[in-house]
């Protein structure tokens, strides 16, 4: 009798462990599915600036307080990637290495500008700590308003003539790269691209 109970108990423990492993495997699969259905491109929400038009030229200040302008045709013909961030935004920090790499690799065709607002001292400390001193960093609440920035990190891509080519909320490297893809393909956003292809099919 005791032996029967021992065998039964051992079998039940094995069943518990196998079931627990199955639950973990299922939840892993659910996690992968969530990752797959997340938006693949930069997310455009609310009332975005119209793509294909030139946003207003905005005067901002860099960390030293020197005025600078953002927008308008660039003298060297390079495109401009505006990356809106905040020292208190964790996702912004995880994207900084990607932004730096893009700035380095595309230096011939692209100028990267980091934009934020708030007291300069706080931003100077952030720049030192993150090691992003090589990138221009401008401050000005007007810039965020002009580009209708909702959630951070937000990015906007202007071409050499100062015309807005792509924009949106960027949470991953793929989202950032989707801006360049959108510019090359001449679509405003991934949503617009998908809608257009769906209409072609229909």
């Amino acid at each position, binding site marked *: 009798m005791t032996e029967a109970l*021992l065998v039964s*108990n*051992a079998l039940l*423990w*094995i069943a*518990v*462990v196998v079931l*627990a*492993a199955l*639950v*973990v495997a299922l*939840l*892993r699969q*659910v*996690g992968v599915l*969530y990752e797959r*259905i*997340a*938006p693949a491109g930069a997310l455009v929400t609310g009332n975005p600036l119209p793509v294909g038009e030139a946003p207003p030229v905005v005067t901002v200040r860099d960390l030293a307080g020197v005025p600078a302008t953002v927008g308008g045709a660039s003298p060297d013909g390079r495109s401009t990637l505006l990356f809106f961030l905040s020292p*208190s935004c*964790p996702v912004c*920090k*995880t994207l900084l290495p990607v932004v730096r790499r893009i700035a380095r690799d595309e230096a011939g065709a692209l100028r990267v500008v980091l934009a934020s607002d708030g007291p300069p001292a706080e931003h100077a400390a952030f720049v030192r700590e993150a090691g992003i001193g090589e990138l221009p960093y401008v401050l000005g609440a007007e810039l965020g308003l002009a580009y209708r920035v909702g959630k951070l990190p937000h990015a906007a891509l202007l071409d050499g003539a100062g015309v807005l080519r792509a924009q949106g909320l960027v949470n991953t490297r793929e989202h950032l790269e989707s801006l360049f893809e959108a510019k090359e393909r001449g679509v405003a956003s991934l949503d617009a691209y998908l809608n257009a292809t769906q209409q072609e099919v229909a």
Partner: protein
Amino acid sequence: MALDPAIETTLRAALALLFAAAALHKLRDRAAFRAVVDDYRALPRPLGRAAAALLPWVEVAAAAALAAPWGGAPRALGPLLGAALLAVYTGAIALNLARGRRHLDCGCLGPSLRQPLSAALLARNAVLSVAALACLLPPAPRALHALDAFTVVAAAGALALFWSGAHRALANAPRLAGLRVSP
């Protein structure tokens, strides 16, 4: 009140696994853990830096002390160290929940499984603290049997899997919520 030695060994093994896993993900990506400690804003920055460097090693010590087959007074070291770590984490989470900063990454399972702060984490830590402190109860006078070894391995393995599953479910919850609001 006495605790059966098989239950105590199971709890110790499961908690040792938990702290070892927690230390491992923190040591693997130190920069990510530093960022998590910064974002909690519970300590001034230099102290936060020191805490971020020290905490993984306290977790390693807790895991080792829980797993060590010590008798007598050192027996209490592992459970107390574990409970102290949990109290520190619970305090930091409760502080930020009180500030309304729920969007923070908990930092519980490393950078790959982000999850926001929630009251569920406080309940989780309370359960873990009770489990750690239960190991301080005097052991029941019973000789361990070969079958106990099987029970301990199976139960600790099952608890580790439940732990992993529960965290995956917690990490998935905000993603589901995100799908509900977006069109």
